[in-house]
């Protein structure tokens, strides 16, 4: 028998890939059912308008059309698209607009036809009579007296105002050598997964069962919300998240189309498919960020930061999606970053505007926080002529201080911020690059070095930290079953869509039972197969789903050791799992094959008192606390003074996500995160014009970076295990996005220092840089 290697910590190729590289994965659009019809949605071309009438007569009689429905047809039939996060004003969010449209892309009517071409033909025959209204576009003007009101019932566009006051901040301002004031914008972004959203619904009238395939990150939470919207029992709904082509937070949601397509399948009694088009994806799938922050920073001339006072205006969009008003809270609480800044106070105003809702996008509140913290550090360094690395060192929470309470009221689990910074600076050859920068400046070349030392919050738990209306908490579930032939089936409550837990979880299970990785199958994303779970978001898959799995594995190991102990006449605590056997730890030659123990459990011919037949265990794991991954990214860029183009000379990332199960996959997560973070710094921006029209409605206008717009990433890790879970893991799904944006902005602004340019808002496009240089030269 070949020796079975260890898998955890090794470079293991993904087990998801053979199907994906051969075109045999099944995404929602690949689901085909007998008698299936296609739905297409007519969307508002106006940001704000009254609907006078909709003429559906021509569309209804068009070739191949099965049904046409408008908002009026659905009144009282489907509940509000849900928002579970607390807010002072939560508007009713209809599946199809009635009376008024409130953003470009809002669903107005749906056509169902025999195929998408015919549905599109009929869509063109719908006639809507609109009365356009003035739109609220700038969130800072949403509260003006003469601003148009988006939801009349509220009489205001203020969704919520919240305040975290702290009198110590005023004290800090008095003690400071300087109070530095500035305004930062985290611009609106589109998550833009390569697979747009899609829904297929099938109604089984005899069973009264609904099966819904959706490109979602949260099949169980979606089932709960759909049950409420459609007034069906949860045990009458099966949600399947098949292959999901990326989510990045925008599929951590419940959308009008999910309820609508389900309703259509139920009422038409035919399977219905709706596939989002890219234009719809950019206009009617949740956006991210869109926060404006006014900052006052109390600092001493040695670089010590004494306090931060911030005032936020956050753009909610026209309606509240699942977690819309919950996102900015993280930006406030995490704003002090890796630093022992003693005093923090902030106020947040959430504005309704005539735009698509914002919600979670990779990082969800923490990229904004890291951007603030890291711009603060550079502003302080710049103000007092200090090295930005030294300012960070001066303010770091020291490694002896963990678990470390913060000014935001959180407790960081573990950290060694100097270690990551030192390693990143060494990899970037910081001192040498500073010398080169100096020499280059003399020749008129603009080289900039940017640093960002970030910390973020992952694996949000315990459950009390999540919104009370969310049916589910911060926990996660796992079932592990050893089948009669010793193969292992894992049912996990997370719902990976590219993260690769079919591989990492199999690595953990294989090592635990001394079996091969190919003996393990990991099943997820099907509410009929898997016990209730929460899903994949907030870097929680391995951070919360992993411990749930391992606790379940331990229960099974205990049971199997008990059985083996009787068979071998060895105490259970002296047994280990190795090479498909259960063996004595002190003498592995003394062993019995795993299969014999499995046979004993299933055959049950000689029952062991207190041991039930079968080999299946389940855990609902509630985390005791959050984890706080951290790291330092360094970017070295050169700005072309003639064109404003930014070129990367180096990109270094040192990330600490605690213990690493799969180094290859950690690199992959970090790379992808960095790409999205660089995109925020340099390229991407959702643009609505002054009338509220969406300008970036195609991939021609919305700048998802291409291969030649990104540098080579030089990545490394430090390993500071988390004490809050049995795996010591911290999460890595969002780290890259959080660390990268500020370091790139800091680098570009460092390059522009000779011109006295203090700050520019993202994205730092060539045009913006070129204009800033030109204006600086004029002045």
């Amino acid at each position, binding site marked *: 028998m070949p020796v079975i290697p260890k898998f955890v910590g090794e470079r293991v*190729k*993904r087990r*998801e*890939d*053979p199907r*994906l*590289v*051969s*075109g*045999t*994965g*099944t*995404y929602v*659009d*690949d689901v085909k059912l007998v008698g299936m019809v296609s739905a297409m949605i007519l969307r508002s071309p106006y940001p704000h308008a009254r609907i006078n009438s909709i003429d559906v007569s021509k569309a209804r009689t068009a070739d191949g059309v099965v049904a046409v429905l408008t908002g009026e047809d659905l009144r009282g039939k489907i509940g509000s698209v849900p928002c579970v996060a607390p807010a002072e004003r939560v508007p009713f969010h209809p599946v199809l607009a009635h009376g008024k449209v409130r953003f470009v892309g809002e669903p107005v009517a749906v056509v169902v036809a025999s*195929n998408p*071409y015919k549905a599109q033909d009929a869509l063109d025959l719908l006639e809507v009579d609109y009365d356009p209204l003035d739109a609220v576009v700038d969130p800072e003007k949403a509260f003006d007296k003469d601003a148009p009101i988006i939801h009349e019932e509220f009489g205001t566009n203020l969704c919520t105002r919240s305040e975290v006051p702290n009198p110590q901040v005023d004290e800090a301002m008095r003690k400071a050598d300087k109070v530095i004031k500035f305004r930062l914008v985290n611009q609106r972004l589109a998550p*833009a*997964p*390569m*697979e*747009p959203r899609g829904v297929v619904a099938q109604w089984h009238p005899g069973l009264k069962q609904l099966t819904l395939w959706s490109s979602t990150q949260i099949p169980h939470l979606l089932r709960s919300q759909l049950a409420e919207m459609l007034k069906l029992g949860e045990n009458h709904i099966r949600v399947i998240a098949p*292959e*999901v*082509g*990326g989510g*990045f937070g925008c599929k951590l949601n419940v959308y009008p189309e999910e309820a609508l397509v389900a309703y259509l399948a139920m009422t038409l009694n035919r399977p219905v498919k709706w*596939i989002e*088009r*890219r234009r719809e994806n950019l206009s009617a799938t949740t956006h991210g960020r869109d926060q404006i922050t006014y900052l006052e920073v109390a600092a001493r001339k040695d670089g010590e930061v004494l306090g931060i006072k911030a005032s936020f205006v956050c753009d909610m969009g026209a309606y509240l999606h699942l977690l819309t008003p919950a996102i900015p809270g993280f930006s406030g609480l995490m704003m002090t970053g890796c630093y022992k800044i003693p005093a923090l106070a902030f106020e947040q105003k959430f504005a309704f505007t005539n735009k698509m809702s914002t919600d979670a996008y990779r990082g969800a509140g923490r990229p904004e926080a890291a951007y603030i913290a890291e711009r603060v550090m550079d502003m302080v360094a710049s103000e007092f002529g200090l090295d930005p690395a030294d300012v960070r060192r001066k303010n770091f929470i020291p490694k002896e201080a963990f678990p470390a309470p913060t000014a935001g009221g959180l407790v960081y689990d573990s950290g060694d911020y100097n270690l990551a910074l030192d390693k990143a600076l060494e990899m970037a050859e910081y001192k040498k690059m500073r010398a080169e920068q100096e020499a280059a400046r003399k020749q008129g070349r603009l080289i900039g070095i940017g640093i960002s030392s970030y910390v973020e919050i992952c694996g949000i738990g315990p459950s009390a930290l999540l919104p009370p209306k969310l049916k589910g908490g911060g926990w996660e579930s796992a079932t592990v079953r050893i089948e009669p032939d010793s193969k292992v089936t894992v049912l996990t409550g997370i719902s990976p*869509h*590219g*993260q*690769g837990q079919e591989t990492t979880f199999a690595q953990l299970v294989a090592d635990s039972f001394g079996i091969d990785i190919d003996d393990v199958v990991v099943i997820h994303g099907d509410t009929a197969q898997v016990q209730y779970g929460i899903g994949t978001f907030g870097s929680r898959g391995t951070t919360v789903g992993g411990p749930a799995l391992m606790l379940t594995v331990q229960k099974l190991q205990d049971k199997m050791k008990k059985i083996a102990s009787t068979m071998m006449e060895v105490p259970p605590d002296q047994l280990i799992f190795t090479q498909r056997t259960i063996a004595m730890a002190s003498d592995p030659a003394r062993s019995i094959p795993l299969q014999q123990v499995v046979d004993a459990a299933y055959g049950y011919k000689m029952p062991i008192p207190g041991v039930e037949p079968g080999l299946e265990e389940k855990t609902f794991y509630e985390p005791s606390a959050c984890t706080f991954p951290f790291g330092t990214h360094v970017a070295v860029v050169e700005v072309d003074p003639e064109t404003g183009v930014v070129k990367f000379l180096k990109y270094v990332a040192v990330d600490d996500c605690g213990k690493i199960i799969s180094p*290859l*996959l950690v*690199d*992959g997560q970090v*790379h*992808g*995160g*960095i*790409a*999205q973070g660089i995109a925020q710094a340099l390229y991407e921006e959702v643009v609505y014009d002054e009338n509220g029209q969406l300008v970036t409605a*195609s*991939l*021609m206008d919305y700048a*998802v970076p*291409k*291969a*030649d717009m*990104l540098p*080579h*990433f030089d990545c490394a890790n430090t390993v500071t295990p988390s004490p809050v879970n049995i795996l010591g893991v911290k999460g890595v799904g969002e780290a*890259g996005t959080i660390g990268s944006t500020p370091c790139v902005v800091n680098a570009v602004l460092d390059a522009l220092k000779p011109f006295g340019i203090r700050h520019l808002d993202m994205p730092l496009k060539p045009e913006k840089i070129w204009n800033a240089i030109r204006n600086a030269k004029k002045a």
Partner: protein
Amino acid sequence: MRVSLTVNGQRREDDIEPRTLLVHYLREVVGLTGTHVGCETSLCGACTVLMNGRAVKSCTILAVQAEGAEITTVEGLSSDGKFHPVQEGFWEEHGLQCGYCTPGMIMMATDLLSRNPDPSEAEIRAALEGNLCRCTGYQHIVNAVRYAANRMRASKGA
């Protein structure tokens, strides 16, 4: 309208609506769903297939324009149950995460390597600029293409 063409080595004749896009023909008529639709505007490259050996975006070509052509999709790349070196490279180098852009990327990379058997990193990045990936940041894709290039050159030399 009648269209006759070869898909992954198999000759086909089908009656289709003249406006049918090649990608919809492949997915809905032929039943090969490995080719994906990401933007319907030839900007993302998820729908890339080979037409007479060259990469094309099948979301902006009518099926009737492929009359008489030889089309290769991701399903047609492996032979004798073995992955094509480009498929192998993507697996080996973790060149994919969600997998949605992957078939298009693989077809584009196959086209590149047929023209340039030893591309530099910059050449690979330039060749892939019509194919968007939102997950990987492209570095592992570059590695995957380099891996495939080495494998293909080694097997030619052997």
